[in-house]
């Protein structure tokens, strides 16, 4: 298996996707699961360091940069893909299977890229492949959502490209490192903006809740995991300790909560919840200490697991009922109890309930805010922790599986779906009770410099017995959040509505802009046509034709009168002259006479000048 040491893991999945295209459905689906497992194994075989340096346009690329950070993201990307492909056994679409594999492969390409060109190419490939996961729903809404999604990502990609080119010009290097990315001020902000669009930072966030809920059941699971987390990975690489990210992350956490509370569509609630969770990670990158970065990697790892689990449970409900609005769902615990239990485990994990994975990862980020005296950021993160329980921990399972029984009696989710969800639910609890395997793969460089023994305390008793006070405060926070939810439950009654978000500016706003441009520019065009093209220019043409004829007629009038004193004859000669001017047809003798006169005048002028 030494070959796996020197193959970019992303390439395994992308090439595999092409091969699988030729196979029948069952082999294709099994192949996708096997490819995800092979990718995971290949990552485990990689040794730290850089390798594979092909040359492109005179630049030496680095296709494989392996360290603890890239391996941690690689592990979770392939692990999530493995569970998601098992869950999606029902899906026979060739295009969807291929798009998902290419999407995961290109995300791995970004994670293991050691240069900005490889990063950028994989980044754009991700955008294209993921668009197919929205398109595959094959509804008018998904088609339009996919169109908006790709436009936003291509715009973000172009901004990123501008930043990369500026960085290359300023430094002469294509290395994908913090030093190169941040050396030139303008390059830095272009790159940061390009990444933040993919991270769904406010106000560039609305593409996510716009597109993800319109994707297929399988597509939603994949989309929830890769684009935003790849953006978090690139922030870790390029901008650790960039303090601007702290307020940006804080705003994301609160924005996600408020919009998730407003939403009626269960998958849109989960989409806003992604923004909230990525906000924690962005904030952690902004804090930027070794422990904070370790916390971000840990939280990204756990987040992908429980978020995919939540999207799976929502997907199972959508698969069985064909519905995704809270106003149409409810009471499903009666016939989908296993889906309810597994989905609730995901909901508890995202809420950082003790003994789940969220508790052992998110608390690290919150603790670093406190350690570094970011008082307001710490407070916002604590408030957001309570808010997560409110919208994702309680609202999602309550309105989908409990609330009002609407008479829906769907079957339990199919076995492959339950196996996929079961695997992730197990990981949520396993990592919550025994986080050592997770902490062991966190960046070593960060672990070696830990200020406290936070990550050294990886045993169950260290976390839950020695630090029982932290369990108590989290318990209080969550219990009273739940109390607030049920006290104010009448205010949370769902309505069949959507929420206006920043995409209003390019959906309604663009329509109005088009209307204004249409009326103003086309009005200007019509006026120009009427007054310039149809009135002024013909008048000028007439003037250009008639004026010389009139002047000539005036000059010739005495001659004509001498030749023919009759007024009718004069008028006839005048009309003939005008006609000749108009058509440009003069007898050759006239032209010759004119040329002769002009030449004579020139000679005369020349002699006078001498």
């Amino acid at each position, binding site marked *: 298996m030494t070959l796996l040491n020197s193959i970019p893991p992303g390439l395994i999945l992308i090439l595999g996707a092409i091969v699988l295209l030729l196979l029948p459905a069952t082999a294709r689906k099994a192949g996708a699961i096997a490819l995800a497992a092979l990718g995971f194994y290949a990552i485990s075989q990689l040794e730290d360091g850089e390798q594979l340096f092909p040359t492109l346009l005179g630049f030496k690329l680095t296709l494989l940069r392996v360290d603890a950070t890239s391996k941690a993201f690689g592990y979770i990307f392939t692990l999530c893909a493995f569970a998601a492909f098992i869950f999606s056994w029902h899906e026979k679409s060739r295009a969807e299977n291929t798009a998902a594999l290419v999407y995961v492969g290109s995300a791995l390409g970004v994670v293991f890229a050691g240069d900005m060109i490889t990063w950028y190419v994989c980044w754009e490939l991700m955008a294209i492949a993921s668009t197919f996961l929205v398109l595959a729903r094959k509804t008018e809404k998904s088609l339009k959502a996919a169109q908006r999604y790709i436009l936003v990502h291509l715009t973000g990609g172009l901004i990123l490209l501008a930043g990369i080119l500026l960085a290359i010009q300023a430094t002469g290097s294509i290395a994908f490192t913090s030093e190169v990315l941040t050396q030139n001020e303008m390059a830095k902000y272009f790159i940061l903006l390009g990444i933040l669009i993919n991270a769904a930072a406010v106000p560039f966030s609305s593409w996510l809740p716009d597109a993800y809920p319109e994707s297929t059941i399988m597509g939603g699971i994949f989309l929830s995991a890769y684009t935003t987390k790849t953006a978090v990975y690139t922030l870790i690489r390029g901008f650790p300790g960039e303090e601007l990210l702290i307020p940006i992350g804080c705003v994301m956490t609160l924005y996600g909560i408020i919009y998730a509370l407003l939403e009626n569509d269960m998958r849109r609630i989960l989409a806003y919840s992604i923004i909230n969770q990525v906000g924690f990670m962005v904030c952690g990158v902004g804090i930027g200490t070794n422990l904070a970065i370790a916390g971000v990697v840990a939280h990204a790892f756990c987040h992908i697991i429980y978020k995919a689990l939540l999207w799976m449970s929502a997907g199972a409900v959508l698969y069985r009922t064909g519905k995704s609005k809270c106003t149409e769902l409810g009471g499903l615990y009666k016939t989908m109890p296993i889906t309810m239990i597994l989905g609730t485990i995901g909901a508890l994990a995202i809420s950082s309930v003790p003994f789940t994975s969220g508790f052992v990862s998110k608390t690290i980020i919150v603790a670093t805010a406190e350690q570094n005296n970011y008082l307001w950021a710490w407070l916002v993160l604590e408030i957001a922790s309570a808010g997560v329980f409110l919208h994702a921990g309680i609202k999602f399972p309550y309105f989908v599986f409990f609330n009002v029984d609407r008479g829906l009696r769907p079957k339990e989710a199919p076995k492959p779906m339950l196996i996929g969800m079961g695997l992730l639910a197990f990981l949520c609890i396993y990592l919550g009770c025994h986080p050592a395997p997770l902490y062991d793969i966190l960046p070593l460089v960060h672990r070696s410099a830990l200020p406290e023994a936070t990550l050294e305390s990886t045993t169950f008793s260290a976390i839950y017995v020695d630090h029982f006070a932290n369990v108590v405060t989290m318990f*209080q926070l969550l219990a009273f959040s739940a109390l607030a939810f049920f006290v104010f439950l009448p205010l949370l009654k769902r309505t069949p509505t959507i929420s*206006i978000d920043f995409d209003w500016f390019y959906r309604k706003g663009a329509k109005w802009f088009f209307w204004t441009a249409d009326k103003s520019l086309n009005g200007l065009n019509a006026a120009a046509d009427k007054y310039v093209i149809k009135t002024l220019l013909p008048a000028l043409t007439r003037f250009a034709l008639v004026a010389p004829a009139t002047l000539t007629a005036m000059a010739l009038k005495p001659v004509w009168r001498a030749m023919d004193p009759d007024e009718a004859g004069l008028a006839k000669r005048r009309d003939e002259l005008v006609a000749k001017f108009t058509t440009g047809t003069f007898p050759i003798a006239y032209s010759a006479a004119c040329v002769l006169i002009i030449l004579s005048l020139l000679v005369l002028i020349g002699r006078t000048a001498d």
Partner: protein
Amino acid sequence: MSETPEKPFVPDEPTVSRKFWIALWLTCGVSVLLELLVPRHVHFESSDSAFASATNGFGFYVALGFLACSSAILLAKGLGLLLKAKENYYDDTP
């Protein structure tokens, strides 16, 4: 897919049962009592700000959890008046 029940369906009342309320209040009560028994981790020891020291007060997380979530719900309710639109709001746009 979904199966239609044989009898005409009467929806449940969307109320939370009394037992659930008791369990919820008990959970909250126990969480407060536990704070009396377990010494809390002290936040922002080096900070001299009044707010920083307030975070170490008894019941801080109780107040934070309840007030933060109540405020979020009320804020969302208020913003809903402004931000909620009919489902077909964007139907005539690309």
